[in-house]
């Protein structure tokens, strides 16, 4: 098991290397550069000076080696958008907020989604099931910035119950600067789509497992419905759920530009877009490597989770003893 995990981590390093090469070559092959003039023209000498300062006058392969030799020492350079700070500092500062948004959203989306899915599965074709299916379809099809606008219009503008935006600045918080009233709308808007997906998957997995022969066996033993569900149905329904739902997690903890700009949250999500638009090479590289890293780790964790849920799965086992 340990050897397997080490192998997987080595593979993850190789993936990061591949991603870095692809992203670096792609972003340099896009026309335009970070210091292109938009209004007045810079004197050519001044521009050459700036390019030289950031090493952009060198051939791309040399720039890549230069970047990577710093990156392996966790020096990811200076963001061109904000030259007074470093990429590492900018990401850790903005990501700290995004992780708060993301984790809260994950708890809400998975908590309510799983509960709704279980309930719907156990009351198939009842009005609750129909409602869950309808809301799920809505949640998947309506984009989160539209939901965000509705929520703002209803709860902030019309009813004036909750603040329109911000993150941890409303002054009404549960703990210190966390779990504030201004967390509610962004988290709800952000959580609806993943919650819908979670609910649908949970329902589908449970309905499938409930039809299995071993569930009938468990009922024939005289176990109560709750025991049948806890011990036999849910344990098995987890297997497809882990596969499908694990992939929601990295998306949610890297933030969304729509949610962040709608609710004026200073998170990481917007940098995915602005760094690309501004040809902010160090920031592009760092954000992409972060996403690739999170996905790699997540897949590893999903595979480890399988071995805990399903005894038939043994990671890296050569043969059964």
């Amino acid at each position, binding site marked *: 098991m340990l050897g397997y995990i080490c192998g997987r981590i080595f593979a993850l390093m190789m993936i990061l290397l591949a991603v870095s090469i692809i992203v670096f070559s792609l972003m340099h092959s896009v026309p335009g550069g970070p210091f292109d003039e938009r209004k007045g023209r810079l004197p050519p000498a001044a521009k050459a000076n700036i390019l030289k300062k950031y090493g952009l006058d060198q051939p791309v392969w040399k720039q890549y080696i230069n970047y990577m030799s710093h990156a392996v020492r966790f020096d990811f350079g200076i963001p061109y958008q904000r030259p007074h700070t470093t990429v590492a500092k900018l990401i850790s500062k903005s990501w700290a907020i995004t992780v708060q948004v993301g984790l809260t959203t994950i708890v809400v989306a998975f908590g309510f989604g799983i509960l709704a899915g279980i309930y719907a599965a156990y009351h198939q074709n009842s009005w609750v099931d129909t409602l869950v299916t309808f809301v799920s379809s809505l949640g998947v099809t309506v984009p989160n910035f539209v939901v965000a606008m509705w929520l703002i219009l209803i709860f902030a503008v019309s009813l004036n119950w909750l603040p329109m935006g911000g993150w941890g600045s409303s002054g009404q918080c549960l703990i210190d600067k966390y779990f504030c009233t201004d967390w509610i709308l962004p988290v709800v808007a952000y959580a609806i789509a993943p919650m819908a997906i979670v609910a649908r998957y949970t329902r589908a997995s449970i309905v499938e497992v409930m039809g299995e022969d071993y569930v009938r066996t468990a009922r024939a*033993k005289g176990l109560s419905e709750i025991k049948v569900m806890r011990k036999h149905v849910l344990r098995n329904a987890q297997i497809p759920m882990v596969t499908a739902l694990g992939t929601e997690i990295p998306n949610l903890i890297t933030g969304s530009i729509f949610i962040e700009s709608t609710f004026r949250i200073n998170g990481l999500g917007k940098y995915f877009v602005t760094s690309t638009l501004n040809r902010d090479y160090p920031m592009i590289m760092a954000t992409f490597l972060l996403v690739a890293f999170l996905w790699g780790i997540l897949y590893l964790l999903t595979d480890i989770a399988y071995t805990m849920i399903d*005894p038939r799965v043994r990671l890296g086992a050569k043969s059964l003893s």
Partner: protein
Amino acid sequence: MGEALLEVENLHVHFPTPDGVVQAVNGISYSLGKKEILAIVGESGSGKSVGVLSLLRLIPARDCKVQGSVNFEGQNLLKLSDPEMRELRGNRIAMVFQDPMTSLNPVLRIGDQIQESVIEHQGISEKIAKSRAIELLELVGIPEAGKRYRHYPHQFSGGMRQRIMIAAGLACEPSILIADEPTTALDVTIQAQIIDLVKKLRREIGMSVIWITHDLGIVAGLADRVAVMYAGKIVEFAPVDQLFKTPQHPYSRGLLNSLPRLDARSEKPLEAIEGLPPNLINYPASCPFLERCSYQTEQCQIPPEMRSITTTHEVCCHHTEKL
């Protein structure tokens, strides 16, 4: 047979579907004595599985209609509340299912699956339950039971898994074991072992068995009495040797004629029963076997009633005298 342990009277099981009502079981009656092994035979779709699943109210479709009465120890099982029913399931009446590859939960240790009914019904501690589970594994002939107790279903062969299913069924020492085609998925040598095991357990524990099968060879070697089912009805009910020697219903005769025999001349082809069973949605108003029967007369338009031809032999046909 003495006093009956279980009495099924006029049991009907109907499933409403968008195409009409499927009449899966149509008024079957039988009794099961103490220590008796009763075999129910019939082809696929004859209602034999649904008939026994309905005894324990284990039919998954919520809208299915079960009528009649099932008397066990002075109570009608069809009228019990859900908790009362659960109290009997696995405890007094246990069930072993057809496919051992899918009937065990793949993510739980087999020990857990054997002992959970004992823990549920007798409220004993895990530790005692564990020693009981190991005892049961030894009883059904699983070597190294103490070690195997901790294994998962995928670490066993099909025959072993069926033994585990039987061990789980026996955990509470039930009065009745219902076995729904438990050997169909197994090869013949394993079948023979399982049958010997059930006979041994009947002697040792003194339980009654309802054994559902479509294999007449197993019936001959195992059962005391046989009920032959066709289109949701019992068409013949007799002690096993009488059925094999003097089958009365044309369907039973057809079944027996379709068996290969060691003493028959090899050139003669096996006789098949021509035609198909009736559609259970448009259930015929005549005798259900009419279309496939070579003895049919005008009289067969009226469905025959079950009647006794000897004290132990019942048959559902107008023409038993002619046969």
